[in-house]
Structure formats: structure tokens, C-alpha cells
């Protein structure tokens, strides 16, 4: 599955901290030993592969690093403070945030018609159309970014078509800049947005729309007064999901940005593997985590306001 493997489920996890059906559990509370025996391997696996690395990473942000793998074990806030005091990292953080926001807005706009279509259609091709919309999810982000490099490149599909048609004299700069990254990310995150919207469109009801229209409402009015408000929870979920995925994505900014586009994720990579300044990479990661947490927190507030879930 593509896109840094982060899934749609992230939002689901935020929505339902403990999803458990109302089904009665008659076999419940049978045996303490049994359920702990069942749980322990999974807990250990998660502890080793997820909790330890994360905790160790956060601790690392309070050490001092000089690059080249030199780490001074201490407890200081100076490493975390460094990016916060440096205008360059304010710009990187701002660019990351702006990119996430732009991608999320555009992605929601282009995914909405498809999601609405899939929810409403009674076509016998519905299953196929749904699979077609989600299939890109099961292709590596690397492959799809490569596809966009071919489309947007200097000799790519768009430029050669426009030049041949005589519409532009010289090829447009569509890769190795933010424009290319945003176009690529919008497409790459569309399946996630579509999936999130379909799940959130539960209250969209064609009978209500028919009722409004038979009472004389215009098509535009039916949409703004009935369809849009009912589909809002799905839209908000999709927006949040694409936003958090965008600000943490690495592959697409790396490849389509061509080293010119610097966001938090590419900075973390450069600091980790290039400069070997691990405490500083960890400090940037902590900033990314805080950004992530703040957005999810805000989302839960919005969802509560909308009165769903």
C-alpha cells in the first residue's frame, strides 16, 4: 500500500479509541491467564518495534549533537530550541504546513465528486468503479511519484503536448519545485480522501434531496442546504487525513521536489543520513509529532461540534 503506509485507519483510530461492538460476550471473563497469554506476544512486538524506538527518539532530542554521529549524552533543551530560534526552520515548518493545507484543500475538492458519485450510483459497475478508485492505494508511492515525474517532467507529457500545440514556447517548470510536489501529492492521497468521505457520507440521503427538489428547491439550493451539510463529517475527516499524511510524507517531496523543496520530512532525512546529527533530527521529529498531535486534537474538537461519532 502506498503513501508511506500511513493509513486511513489513522483517523478511524482517532475517532474510535476502542471499537467494540455491542455484541454480548458470554464467554467473557473466563480465564486471566489465557487472555494475557494471547496478548503478551503482540504487546511485546509493539513495544520493541514501536514504543522503544519512539521513546528513545524523543529522549535523543534532549541530547546534544555535533554531526558526524557525535552525540553528547545530557539533558538540555538547547537542541529543541535550535530549530525554534532559527528562521530557516520556521520557513521549513511553514512550508510543510502550507503544503499540507494546499494539498488537503485541493484533494478534498477533486475527491468529493467521485465520492458522492460512488455513494449515489446504482450502476452495476459500482464495485468495479470503487475498486478502480482505491486500487492506486495498493501501488507503491515511489511508482506513482515516478509516473508524475514522467507526466510533469521537462520533456514530459504535459510540456511536450503544450509545446507541440504551440501554446507555450518553452517547457514549463513543473518538477523540482513545490508545484510538482503538490500535484503529485493531491493525486496520491485521493484514494484516502475518497475512502474517508464514503465512510463519512452515511447521512447523505437521496430521499431528502428528492423531497427538497419536489418542494421546489433548485439543484444548487438542494446541494448547499441538504447534500453539503450532510456530507460535512466525511469532508472534515478526509481533510484531516490528507493534511496529516501530507505533512509527514517523504518520498514525493524528495523525488518531485528534486532537492529544492525542503519540508520537515526531507530535513529529518538529511540530518539523519547526511549530516548524522541525530539529536537535531530527533528535535525536528518532535516538532513534527507536536504538529501532528495538534491537528488531530483540533479535528476531534471539530467532529464533536458537528455532532457525529
Amino acid at each position, binding site marked *: 500500500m502506498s503513501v508511506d503506509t500511513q*493509513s486511513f485507519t489513522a483517523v478511524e483510530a482517532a475517532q474510535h479509541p476502542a471499537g467494540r461492538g455491542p455484541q454480548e460476550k458470554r464467554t467473557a471473563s473466563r480465564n486471566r491467564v489465557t487472555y494475557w497469554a494471547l496478548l503478551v506476544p503482540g504487546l511485546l512486538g509493539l513495544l520493541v518495534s514501536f514504543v522503544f524506538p519512539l521513546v528513545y527518539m524523543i529522549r535523543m532530542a534532549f541530547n546534544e549533537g555535533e554531526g558526524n554521529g557525535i552525540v553528547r549524552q545530557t539533558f538540555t533543551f538547547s537542541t529543541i530550541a535550535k530549530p525554534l530560534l532559527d528562521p530557516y526552520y520556521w520557513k521549513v515548518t511553514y512550508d510543510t504546513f502550507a503544503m499540507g493545507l494546499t494539498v488537503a484543500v485541493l484533494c478534498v475538492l477533486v475527491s468529493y465528486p467521485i465520492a458522492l*458519485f460512488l455513494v449515489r450510483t446504482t450502476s452495476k459497475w459500482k464495485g468495479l468503479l470503487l475498486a478502480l478508485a482505491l*486500487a492506486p492505494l495498493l501501488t507503491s508511492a515511489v511508482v506513482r511519484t515516478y509516473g508524475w515525474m514522467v507526466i510533469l517532467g521537462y520533456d514530459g507529457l504535459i510540456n511536450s503536448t503544450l509545446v507541440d500545440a504551440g501554446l507555450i514556447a518553452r517547457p514549463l517548470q513543473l518538477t523540482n519545485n513545490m508545484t510538482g510536489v503538490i500535484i503529485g501529492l493531491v493525486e496520491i492521497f485521493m484514494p484516502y480522501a475518497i475512502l474517508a468521505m464514503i465512510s463519512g457520507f452515511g447521512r447523505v440521503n437521496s430521499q431528502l434531496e428528492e423531497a427538497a427538489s419536489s418542494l421546489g428547491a433548485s439543484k444548487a439550493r438542494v446541494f448547499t442546504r441538504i447534500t453539503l451539510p450532510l456530507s460535512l463529517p466525511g469532508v472534515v475527516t478526509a481533510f484531516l487525513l490528507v493534511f496529516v499524511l501530507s505533512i*509527514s510524507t517523504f518520498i514525493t517531496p524528495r523525488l518531485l521536489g528534486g532537492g529544492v523543496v525542503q519540508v520537515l520530512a526531507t530535513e*529529518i532525512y538529511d540530518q539523519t543520513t547526511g549530516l548524522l546529527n541525530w539529536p537535531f533530527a530527533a528535535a525536528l521529529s518532535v516538532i513534527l509529532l507536536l504538529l501532528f498531535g495538534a491537528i488531530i486534537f483540533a479535528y476531534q474538537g471539530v467532529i464533536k461540534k458537528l455532532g457525529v461519532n
Partner: protein
Amino acid sequence: MSQPIVFKKRVSFVKPAYGFLVAALYFFLLAPLLIVFVISFSSNQYLSFPPDGFTLKWYQLLPQETTFIDGLQTSLITASISTVIVLFIGVPAALALDRYDFRSKALLSSFFLSPLLVPTIVLALGLVLILGPLGLTNTYVSIILGHIGITIPYVIRTTLMSLNTSDTSCEEAARVLGADGLTVFRRITLPIIAPGVLAGGVIAFIVSFDEAVISLFVAESGRPTLPVQVLRYVENSADGVVAALSVILILFSLVVVVIVERAMGLRKALR
């Protein structure tokens, strides 16, 4: 999605303009995959348009690209092993979360899903920091370990979904008749929840197989996986070989989509 019962013929909402918009957006969504398909047959030496002719040479060159073959081997080994491990630790955990009652249950459920709430790149950095001093970077172990954390949630989720909707009366009957816990699981529960387990396993495999960021961080120089090799290749050169490889990977994904769709429905499995 439950369809309301329609007594009269439904008024069609799909106006031509709207249909055209949806078709155009579908085209945008599938554009990179379509273009990769075209370019893989293009006889142009570089990525340029339009193709001067069509050829199969990129597909013929593919077996000679040893970096891709090595990467494929690494990816298959690590994805298979991490899938097996995740199934062995995830399915029992899901079973405990659904069939037993205990106090910290809600907390543990969210704990098992929490890796999805953390950016992969942050986790990747943590793995490098912890595995580096142990001398485990650039090994199969580092990739497998990294992929266990990010795939557990999928297995737990799909298995829980199957468990939630299954009927427990057969299990009780077997127990009343004297079957022990393991027999009940093997003979009754597992066959019932098999679609969820299968879907979880397939998704875990694909996530692991396609994952590039963790693999890049923990094993770039020693054991690059296929996505890492493709990433490197694309950064330096751009010819049709990588397109041919991509087409094969896309077809592979399509086969998987069909399997998951047959097993339990793609949408249910992914959410």
C-alpha cells in the same frame, strides 16, 4: 452500505456534465499508472513524449538489472517473514480483545492501533537510533522489526472485524461438548474468521512490500528493498526499465486487490 428499497424507478442524478467531471477526475487519479504503462512500451531512450515507437526491450532488460532482482529478493523475504510474525502475534491479540473482558481493554485496543497515528518517518528515525548502536542496521532483522509495528494495526483491525460479526454459539457448543481452548480455536474460530485473517495478512504483506521510508532509513546501504532500489534508480536515471518494473508491480497489486475483494471486500478491509 444498505440500499433503501426502491419501489419506483430512481431519478437519475448523474447529469452529463457531472458524469464528465467524474470521468475527468478518474482520469487524473489513474494518470500516473496509465502513463507508466505507456512508457514501459516506449522505444524512446529517455522519458520523453510522445513515444517514437513501441518495444518490449525494457521488459527484456529487467532480468539483467541485478539491483532490482536483489531488491525483490530482500523485499519478498522481509515482507513474508514480517507478515507471518504479525499474524502470529496479532491474531491472538485480536482474539483476546474480542472474546475476553478485562479492565484495560479499551486502552489496549487503542494501543494496538496507535502506530497509525505516528508519522512513519519519525518511527524510522527512532528505529535507526535504537538499532544502530546494536549493530542491527542494514540487516533483514531491522527491516522486519520496523515493518512489524506498522502492520500490526491492519491485522488486528481486520481480525477484530471478523470476530465482531461472527457467531459465538458454535464455539460454546464445542466447549460444552468438551473441546479444549486450542481445539475450539483451530476447528471452529479460525475457519470462521479466516477471511479477516487472510485480508489482514495480505494487507500486511503489501504494506511491508511497498514501504520505502523505514527501509530507506534502517537498511539503505546494506539491504535495500525493492522500493528503495526503485527510489535510488529514479533519482539518478530515468529510462523505461523502471516503468516496466512498475507495470509488473501494478499487475501484482491488482491480483492482490482481487484476492482481498473476494475474501472480504476491499473497502471493509482497508478501513
